[in-house]
C-alpha cells in the first residue's frame, strides 16, 4: 500500500464516522462486557473494560437455567421464518402484478399499498387484538404471525425491483409457455434474489426484535419470543442480577448477527449475479 497524505478533511470525516460508530456500538459492547462480569464488578464507580475475574460460565448457565431461553429462540425462529416466507409468498406475485401487468386501477391499488406503509403497527394494534379475540386465535403462533404476513413495504420494494427487470424477459417467458404464476416463481424470483435478501434482512430483524406485538398477543410463556422472554426474565427474578440478564440479551442477539453475516455473503453474490443483461 502506498503511503498517503491524509488531508484535514479526510481526518475530520473519519473522526465523525468513528464517533457515530462508537455511539452505536458502545452499549452493545457494554452488554457483552457486562455479561462476562461477576455481580461485584458490574456496579463499580470506575469504568472497567475487561473484568478482573471472568464470570462467563456462571452468567451464561444462570441465564439458560432461569428461563427457557432455547424455547424463546426457537419461537423466534419459527415466527420470523414463517412471517418472511408468507410475506414473500404474497409480496412477489403482488409486486409482479403491480410492476408488469396492465389492468384497470393498477395505479390506485399501488397508491393504496403506499398508503399502508404509513400506518404504524401501534395504531391498528387494538382492532387487530379484538379481531383475534373474536377469531379465538389470541395466544397462539398464528396471533404472532398473521398480522405481518402482508407487508406493504415488501410489495413496494419488490415492485420497484421488478420495474428494472426488462419487459422482454417476461415476454420471452410468455412465448416459451410459462404461465403468469410460473413467471413469478421461475423467472422473477431468481432475478430478484438480491432484493429479496435485502427485504429478508429488514423483515427478520424487525420481527425478531419486535417487543410490542408479542407482548400483547401472547400470554403463555412457551410462546414468548426472545425480547419478551428476556424482559420477563428481568422483571421476575433477576432485577438486580445484571450478569445473567446481559448474558441472555447477548444470546438472543447472536442469531441475528450470524444471520446477517450469512446474508452479507449472499448480498455480494447477488450483486455480481445481477450484472446480467
Amino acid at each position, binding site marked *: 500500500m502506498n503511503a498517503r497524505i491524509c488531508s484535514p478533511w479526510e481526518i475530520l470525516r473519519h473522526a465523525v464516522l468513528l464517533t457515530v460508530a462508537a455511539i452505536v456500538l458502545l452499549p452493545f459492547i457494554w452488554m457483552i462486557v457486562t455479561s462476562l462480569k461477576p455481580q461485584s464488578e458490574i456496579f463499580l464507580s470506575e469504568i472497567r473494560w475487561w473484568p478482573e475475574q471472568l464470570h462467563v460460565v456462571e452468567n451464561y448457565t444462570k441465564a439458560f437455567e432461569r428461563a427457557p431461553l432455547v424455547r424463546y429462540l426457537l419461537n423466534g425462529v419459527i415466527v420470523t421464518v414463517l412471517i418472511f416466507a408468507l410475506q414473500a409468498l404474497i409480496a412477489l406475485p403482488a409486486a409482479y402484478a403491480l410492476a408488469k401487468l396492465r389492468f384497470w386501477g393498477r395505479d390506485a391499488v399501488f397508491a393504496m399499498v403506499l398508503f399502508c406503509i404509513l400506518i404504524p403497527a401501534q395504531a391498528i394494534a387494538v382492532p387487530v387484538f379484538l379481531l383475534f379475540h373474536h377469531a379465538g386465535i389470541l395466544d397462539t403462533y398464528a396471533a404472532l404471525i398473521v398480522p405481518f404476513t402482508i407487508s406493504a413495504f415488501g410489495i413496494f420494494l419488490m415492485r420497484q425491483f421488478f420495474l428494472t427487470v*426488462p419487459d*422482454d*424477459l417476461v*415476454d*420471452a*417467458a*410468455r*412465448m*416459451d*409457455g*410459462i404461465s403468469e404464476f410460473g413467471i413469478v416463481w421461475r*423467472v422473477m424470483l*431468481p*432475478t430478484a434474489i438480491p432484493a429479496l435478501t435485502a427485504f429478508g434482512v429488514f423483515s427478520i430483524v424487525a420481527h425478531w426484535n419486535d417487543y410490542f406485538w408479542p407482548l400483547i398477543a401472547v400470554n403463555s410463556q412457551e410462546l414468548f419470543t426472545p425480547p419478551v422472554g428476556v424482559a420477563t426474565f428481568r422483571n421476575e427474578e433477576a432485577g438486580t442480577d445484571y450478569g445473567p440478564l446481559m448474558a441472555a440479551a447477548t444470546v438472543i442477539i447472536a442469531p441475528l448477527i450470524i444471520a446477517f453475516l450469512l446474508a452479507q455473503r449472499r448480498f455480494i453474490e447477488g450483486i455480481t*449475479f*445481477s*450484472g*446480467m*443483461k
Partner: protein
Amino acid sequence: MAQFQLSGVRKSFDRTHVLKGIDLHIAEGEFISLVGPSGCGKSTLLRIIAGLEDQSEGSVRIGGDVVDGVRPADRNLAMVFQSYALYPHLTVYNNIAVPLRMRRLSTLQRAAVLRWLIPGTRETEDRIRSDVEDVAKLLGLKDLLQRKPAQLSGGQRQRVAVGRAIVREPRAFLLDEPLSNLDAKLRVHMRTEIAQLHRRLGATFIYVTHDQAEAMTMSDRIAVMMDGNIIQIGSPDDVYDDPQDLRVAEFIGSPKINILDGGVIDEARGLVFGSSRFAATFLERPGTSVRIGVRPEALRLANAENAPFSGRLAHKENLGAEVLLHVEIPDQRAAVIVRFDHGGAREISIGDAVGLTCSPEDLRIFGASGERIKAEVEARKVAHG
C-alpha cells in the same frame, strides 16, 4: 410453417393510434422485414402477431386459423428479442431447454425433486438433451452450454437467443431488432448468418428493424411502415427503384436519395428545373411544382456551364471502394450527394464548380404531399407488364 393474414389491424393506446389499419399477407417460408423509423408501430405489429399485445380492431390469421385472443405460447411462434431476454439465472443449456420442457413435461414433471419419480421424465429429458445439443451444434454453442448468460459475449448471447427460438421448431420466427445491440462488424456477420438460417430452415421469418440495410440485405419482401401504416410493400429492388412515397424514397438507400426542390411540370408534361428541361412525359397537370428525387449513383458529371444541376464541391468522402461528393447547389436545403466507384472524380477538389446530370428515367418525381408522380414511360411499362 405457416402463412399469415392480417386484416384491418388497428391498435390504440388511450388516444394515440399506433396502428391505423394494417392489411398484410405473409406467404409460407417468406422472409419479410417490417422497417421504419422508431415509433412507426412496427414493434407493436410484431407483438400483436406474437400475441403479446391485443389489437384494438382487426384480426390475425396464422395458417388459416384466427388467433385473436390465443395465448402467445399456443400460437407456436418463436421470438428473438432485441435484448435477447435470456434467463440470467439459467445456463445456456437450460435457457435453450426451457421452451421444450414447458411443452413436453407436465407441471409435476417440472417440479423440483419429485420429478424423477414420475414415469417418462427421464426419457423426455433425454430427448430434450439431444435436441438442445443438435441446436447447439448448429449454432456453434457446444462449448458454452454450461455457461451463464453473463459470461457470454453479445454475439454468443444472440446465438443462444436464436437457439432458444429454433429448438422447438415453431411455425414462424419473429425477430425484433435482434442485431441492434451488436457492434457494426458483428452485425454484418450475423446478417449473413440469419439469412443462411432462413434458407436452411425454410421457415417464415418476420423481421423488425429500423435499419434499412438489414431489411435490404436479408428480405424477400420489405414492408415500409410510417406513422402506423404500411406505405409500401415489395421486394428490396421494388422499394429501392420504385418508391411510391417520398418518405419511402428517403428511408431506403444509403447514402440517402437526393431531393431537390423547385421542379415544375411544363405544358408538354416535361420537367423543368432552373433552365434545364427533362423530356419525359409525367402524368400530372402542367404548372404543378414537384420535388425531384435522384439516387446518388444515378448522377454523372457534366459541363458545369449547361448541366441541369450545378454547384460547388463542398466535401469529399473517400470510402475506399467508393467516393462520395457533396455538392452544394444554390437554393437547395441539403447538399447533393454523388457516388462514384473507386478512383472516380479524382481531378475535382473542394470548391470547384461541378455540373451534374442524369437520364430522365432515373428521376423520381414527388408531389407536394410526397406522393409519387409517374412518368408515362413507366406507366406504360406497368400497363404492358
